[in-house]
């Protein structure tokens, strides 16, 4: 079997990154924005693991594990903050979070 060349992984990562960035910039639902951010983090993970394999060392994979942990912590903090917000404002729409003017 032919190994998948690292550039393909980078293309995949770049694609995910782009989808994530567009998601953050265009979607208005806070949960979807959060998911888009997680998508970027996964793009990072794909890149890291691909590069790690390319260099034949484990540094990148260890880094990816840290990123996964961080993504989980971030999701937990984000959802916690969202629940606190929802209790007071009854909305998850970023456009309606407008008490402080942008």
């Amino acid at each position, binding site marked *: 079997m032919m190994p998948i060349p690292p550039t393909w992984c980078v293309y995949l*990562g770049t694609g995910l990154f782009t989808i*994530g960035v567009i998601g953050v910039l265009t979607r208005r639902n806070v949960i979807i924005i959060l998911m888009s951010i997680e998508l970027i983090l996964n793009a990072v993970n794909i890149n890291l693991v691909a590069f790690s394999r390319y*260099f034949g060392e484990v540094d990148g994979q*260890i*880094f990816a594990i840290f990123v996964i942990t961080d993504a989980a912590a971030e999701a937990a903090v984000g959802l916690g*903050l969202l629940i606190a917000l929802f209790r007071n404002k009854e909305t998850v729409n*970023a456009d309606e979070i407008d008490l402080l003017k942008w």
Partner: protein
Amino acid sequence: MTTVSIPDVMRILPELILAGFAILVMLFEPFVPAGRKRVLGWIALLGVLVAGMAFTWAPPNAGMAFSGSIAADGFSYFFIFLFLTIAALALLGSINYLERDNIHHAEYYALILFSTVGMCFMAASAELIMIFLGLEISSLSTYVLAGFRRHDPRSNESAMKYFLLGSFATAFFLYGIAFVYGLTGTTNLVDLAADLAQPGKWSTLTRAALILMFVGLAFKVSTVPFQIWTPDVYQGAPAPVTAFLSTGPKAAAFAVLVRIFLGLAGPSGPAAFWVIWISAALTMTVGNFAALLQKNVKRMLAYSAIAHAGYVLVGLAAAMASGSTEGASAVLFYLAAYAFMNVGAFLLIAHLAGPGEGRTEISDFTGLGRAAPGAAACLTVFMLSLSGIPSTAGFFAKFYVFRASVHAGLIGLTIIAVLNSVVSVYYYLNLVVTMYMREGEPQAARTPMPLPLYSAIAASLFAIFYLGLYPNHFLLLSTLSSKPLP
């Protein structure tokens, strides 16, 4: 097989002590009855003091630790001391605030400590993985702190915006790191600088990766055009938290910027320098002119915080242009001086804003000079220092930055900076004029300052005048600290 040696551990002793105390405070929180949470505040403060003393216990042992991922050098010591000071001041200013507003949960103290640990690791890391972890430890704690007034929609909103934009920025930073790793095969800053110094190693992709990392950090230090979150977050967050996050995480992000960009200034050529130049000019101008229009004190100081980030960037641009230590030491001096005046101002505003932080409009401060002369005088000193009036810390902070940028030949940037500081005098003095010259009954709270807050304000005032009247000692210290190891 690598193992951990005793000197390695000694080099991160302050961080270890802080983390230990943070975990202790968190563990004790459910066991301490509601009326006694104050004790945990003092324990947290003790943790900060013990961490500070760890430097004096441990023999001076500058050097790299943990196979090159931690750089215990003068640079990191300077910033760790700065973060500990900021944390101590914020803790002192928070205890009575939390009691007053019925949000006295000891998680607050634990989060301040955790955030400080993260900031220390940001300043002390010579490894992109560690910098990222420090950034996240500090950011995640501050996201929660910004939303600490759980039942106040403004605070919720502030936390949500900070969280969304902050984690978006971190994602950019990470993506940049992933590319740097892919292009060079290393995440260690020393190896990285060596690798990129080789001819032919510098490519468009490397540049793109560095720009992604810069964008991530630029969000954290709120430079234009990545400043949109700052006013909302600073206004909505509890004022003592704003005091903390407008100084600590910002200084930490600048520490990372200095470490990364000065290390790579040689190989990166003029491109990185111009990025810094342009964002410095934009940041100062946008921050100051937007601050002119504000009616809310916290929001005005938020825009002023943006402007001050611009002045620090001038110092960074000077350091990158000349390669001498003058620019970097001006950056360090500025960050420390700015920390004292901004922490002091926000802590005082937290007190004056009254229960529930209902009084934060500038008009609420009308006539405060007669009603509460002591508090008004302190606030005046903070405003004068922020605007850079001689004999205050703000003056020498600006002076050293401008001098460094003139010496580095950045005349244009210096002129923009000087003009900007002239503009800034208007809105700082506007608050002073409102307090003293306008007739009227102040809406702001006139209750006497509680003792912990009083000592925090007094310490800030002392530091402002000390740096403003005898700047030489501190300048020497920041010059000695301004050469990062790698």
